[in-house]
């Protein structure tokens, strides 16, 4: 990391951040720069009031992402374009601002700057420009006043008024600036970033490894502020998702949003996009990584549970050493304890390509369906041969100190006929295989009963031919 501070373009201006690189961008904006349009609502990425845009060079142009500035380390700003609400507020109201005003989609106004920034993120980054695309882009923006109805009307007004073809993402900012949808500072920003002198955007090899930081900075922001960071986002080598023989390879530092958008994964695993949408909001998915989700070893990690059912293996490496491979179902050793030695990093995640007649499903029940941590989550995959289950893998989170591969239930399922009786048997076995505890997300008894239900849900979803009446009768 450069000793002279971190160089970036903030809105239209090249600046140097003097704050510690382990501090968060929210504080950089509000305290160091006096830009107080970015609001602090929760400091844990759950409200969206502090949303900013982070732009980086990509191909011939730029790539922007809307992120929660309360969880974004200042170190990530090196050589980047940081856009806050002040940078989006021109002499006249933008189309986004007008739509919000005209539909009364702002009441107290505290969440509004974050909403304007997130909608700008939608214009800059969404492959589609429809109403639902826009609503997805603002799914991390909590508003306590409006009940979202007027926000939806504002979004509708905005997208209905767009005279814009989606076009290539890398040059979208230029098109938007030309159309007056973005302020002029976006025009030519790629060249300005190229000209910006900053320390090489390499990671600090001795620092604390940070992948997305979306959990780390919730829990340990105070400690990290004083530390040197090793930004894994700066060590990306390959594509987020690629194929090697019969394996699908996930770059461990890819973002959850990149994985969600992967056509290959959507083709292999039905409803993939929907499942990953349940992981977190757009703001968080734009930063969170599968490696972070796994290495953090939360017993309720959605990605861990999904990948356990998919029989994933981890490639684990140390700088300059040959990587070793560990099956994910052997990686979790105890509560927040893993097979990762100091200095080791998860580099790639290998997922076997599913056999032609295989099934996959993910279930998650939380207090709120979206943007919430599960009470229980579970994933299921299996092959089907002649009306019977071939190999099966069942996993569950929130039911043990670790994200749990349900080995006994999975083994029991192998060779069983696809039937309601099998579903019920699997549900009973799964419930017997777990050791949930009572906490803020539910009582132990609830979690046990819930997992039973979710195992049945796997069968109902994966095998639509099963008689639902029989299942209904069985649970009544």
């Amino acid at each position: 990391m450069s000793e002279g501070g971190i160089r970036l373009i903030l809105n239209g201006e090249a600046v140097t951040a003097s704050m510690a690189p382990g501090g968060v961008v929210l504080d950089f904006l509000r305290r160091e720069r006096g830009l107080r349009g970015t609001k602090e609502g929760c400091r844990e990425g759950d409200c969206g009031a502090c949303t900013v845009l982070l732009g980086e060079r990509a191909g011939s142009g730029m790539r922007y992402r809307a992120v929660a500035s309360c969880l974004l380390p200042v170190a990530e700003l090196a050589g980047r374009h940081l856009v806050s609400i002040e940078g989006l507020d021109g002499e006249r109201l933008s189309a986004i601002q007008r739509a919000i005003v005209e539909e009364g989609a702002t009441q107290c106004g505290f969440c509004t700057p974050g909403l304007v920034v997130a909608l700008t993120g939608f214009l800059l980054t969404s492959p589609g420009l429809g109403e639902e695309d826009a609503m997805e882009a603002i799914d991390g923006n909590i508003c306590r006043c409006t009940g979202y109805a007027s926000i939806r009307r504002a979004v509708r007004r905005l997208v209905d008024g767009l005279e814009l073809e989606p076009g290539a993402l890398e040059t979208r900012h230029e098109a938007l600036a030309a159309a007056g949808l973005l302020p002029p500072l976006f025009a030519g920003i790629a060249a300005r970033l190229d000209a910006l002198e900053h320390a090489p955007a390499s990671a600090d090899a001795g620092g604390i490894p940070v992948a997305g930081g979306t959990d780390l900075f919730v829990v340990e922001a105070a400690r990290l502020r004083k530390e040197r960071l090793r930004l894994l986002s700066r060590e990306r080598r390959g594509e987020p998702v690629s194929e090697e023989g019969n394996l699908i390879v996930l770059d461990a530092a890819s973002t959850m949003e990149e994985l969600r958008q992967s056509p290959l994964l959507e083709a292999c695993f039905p409803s993939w996009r929907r499942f990953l949408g349940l992981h977190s909001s757009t703001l968080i998915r734009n930063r969170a990584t599968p490696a972070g989700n796994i290495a953090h070893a939360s017993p309720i990690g959605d990605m861990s549970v999904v990948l356990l059912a998919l029989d994933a293996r981890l490639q684990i490496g140390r700088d300059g050493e040959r990587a070793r491979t560990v099956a994910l179902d052997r990686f979790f050793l105890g509560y927040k304890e893993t097979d990762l030695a100091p200095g080791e990093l998860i580099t790639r995640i290998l997922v076997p390509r599913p056999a032609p007649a295989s099934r996959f499903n993910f279930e998650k029940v939380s207090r709120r369906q979206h943007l919430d941590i599960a009470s229980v989550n579970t994933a299921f995959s299996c092959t089907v041969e002649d009306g019977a289950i071939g190999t099966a893998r069942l996993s569950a989170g929130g039911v043990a100190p670790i994200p749990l591969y349900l080995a006994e239930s999975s083994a029991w399922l192998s060779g069983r006929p696809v039937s309601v009786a099998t579903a019920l048997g699997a549900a009973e076995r799964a419930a017997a295989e777990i050791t949930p505890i009572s906490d803020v997300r539910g009582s132990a008894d609830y979690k046990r009963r819930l997992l039973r239900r979710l195992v049945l849900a796997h069968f109902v979803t994966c095998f639509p031919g099963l008689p639902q009446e029989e299942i209904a009768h069985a649970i009544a």
Partner: protein
Amino acid sequence: MPSPDAVAHVRARSPFVDDLPEPEGTLHGAVLPSPVAHGRILRLDTAPALAMPGVAAVLTAADVPGENQIGGIVQDEALLAQGEVHHVGQPVALVVAATPRQARAARDLIALEIEELEAVFDPRRAAERGKLIAPARTIACGDVDEAWARCATIVEGRADSGAQEHLYLETQACLAVPEARGRLHLFPATQSPSGVQRITARVLGLQMHDIEVEVQRLGGAFGGKEDQATPWAVMAALAAHRLARPVKIVLGRGEDMRMTGKRHPYSTDFRLGLDGEGRFLAFEATYYQSSGAAADLSTAILQRTLFHATNAYFVPNVRVTGFCCRTNLPPFTAFRGFGGPQAMFVMESAIAAAAERLGRPARELQELNLLRENDPLPYGMRVRRANARRSFAEAVERFGLGRRLREIEEHNAASPLLKRGLALMPVCFGISFTNASLNQAGALVHIYTDGSVSLSTAAVEMGQGVATKIRRIAAGALGISERRIRVESTSTSRVANMSPTAASTATDLNGMAALLACRMLASRLRTSAAELLDVRAEDLELRGERVLLSGEVTDLGWNELVAATWKRRVDLTAHAFYSTPNLHFDPEEGRGRPFAYHVFGTAMVEATVDLLRGTATVDAVHVVHDAGRSLDPLVDRGQAEGGIVQGLGWMTMEDLVHAEDGRLLSDSLATYKIPDLHFTPTALEVVFLEDAANPAAVLQTKAIGEPPFMYGIGAFFAIRNAICAARPLAVDRFVAPLTNERILGMLDGKREEQGARSEE
């Protein structure tokens, strides 16, 4: 004209307290909360904190120059704990340092030893032990005891509703700035500037004129900044006063959630009797309100609960009694609806119990018993312009109840694992502060010589659009463009002795005061114009920034008229005062006319329950609402929609979970969930009742802030009806919120799940 507030919001040019420029040398405060729910302070050693870098002072109860007392209605709440602590999160000490980080780091070093005493969290247990904040209150009419014998059906049971965190996005905050000559200028995020002024004077031993409290806007409040904004403001004032330095306190989200009060949980026993046709003959209820460790507004909230016991129905024989039970939790407080929602939940539970017992749809019983014109409510007031039946009928017809019910029936017959349910939710909500004295407001209006207008009232803008509405009222009264009018911040130096911005009354009261002040000015201007034009003032009106003579435009425009009037040495400032007429209520008798009028409406709520996963979704909310003659439909629709969704949250996912020792476990946005845009039904429609002029409020409008919240209660019964389509439920236990855990418990036939509270 678009609201100047809205334009400023989208440009992020609406500073909230934490965004205000800090005067040089501003210090920052951090509050040490009690870690235990009830105990005796054995040792409080602040020396380790004082030794930390940047620390300017550590203040405790011993540093209070005046009274260490912030209680409003009942004086039972210390600013900083003295001797004992009564809830987890109770402020014990205030650390003031150069930066917020230094203040918090030092706070964590204060040595606090507490001998733990037994704590009570359950209101029924508190009542058993006589831990009451005030004597029980009762409202009764008719002869309940005699009526039971005439009932064909009697249902009884228990209905519990949970607490609710306000989750205003701007946390509690105050900047206190000492000024010359011993004056303090406070910028708190409060709904009650005069309340802060009064209590600060009491605690600091100053006179009220020594303190100016000024509020520009709040980042949401919903009742959570009525009384609960006061301690932080007074603490900032105390430190600023002691140190003669500006001091700012801004609570972090977790601090705010752990230390501040929420909507009161209630546990209630009910009994409802019906005649052979289903008419309500008698209703009895005993409400156990968990009030928390100090009174705060609990007694007033309980009073409103009693007023709304029978919701929108006529019941001839009623006896309802309520207890404010002292529990070792942060003082529960005002939250949109102010005890009304808790009451309506009980009444609707009783109706559901009767309907399920009789095998009849609840909507039949609801419709049969809705209030008619002139029907008396249990406290003796008769409803006028009663739009209960009109709104119900219009909802049924406009939203196609019959068609929807058929669709639901067909769906449920065909779908073994997904069941749909529908519920109607009528609402009748009384408008006025239940404490009659608070129904007053003042307005101060200046016209400057350039024709621009400055308007001050007691209303605090917190997103509810009161500034927009008052500007419109003033512009209409003066016959000028809204652009000429600046609605000023709310300041105790411009308007004295303000009532809080609460009880949905801000526009009713302050709008009327502003209207009266503007009418006074308009009258003076017309007199002046009459002399200038040599005509009779009665023939003149101000409209479109011109003077009109018998409806015809004259040459005299606004600017010229204002300038000429000033030259004639006529006062271009007016102050006006409004108090709601004919309000009276005798709390001992339980009778009177506590409200200026009632707001009516009906919601139709639809939900789907996933029997397999034990989850529910609210599919649609359609509402016919009586908004009077809406002054600003954009604002009113926004208020209605926002209130409805908060109500849906209260009934479904919003669940405060405490540990056995009284610590709040759901103390972050990660663990306490409020509606997000996925949860909110896309089909959310609010239709305003036509021809609903209301002579009892300013310009025929009606208050809008609170009543729509209660439409959300329909979600509970829509979900319940969906579950009932799969399996019958016990009719004597109703527990909200209907979290997924509770839904699965009901589906699994677990009776204890239906009744289980987190603290039991």
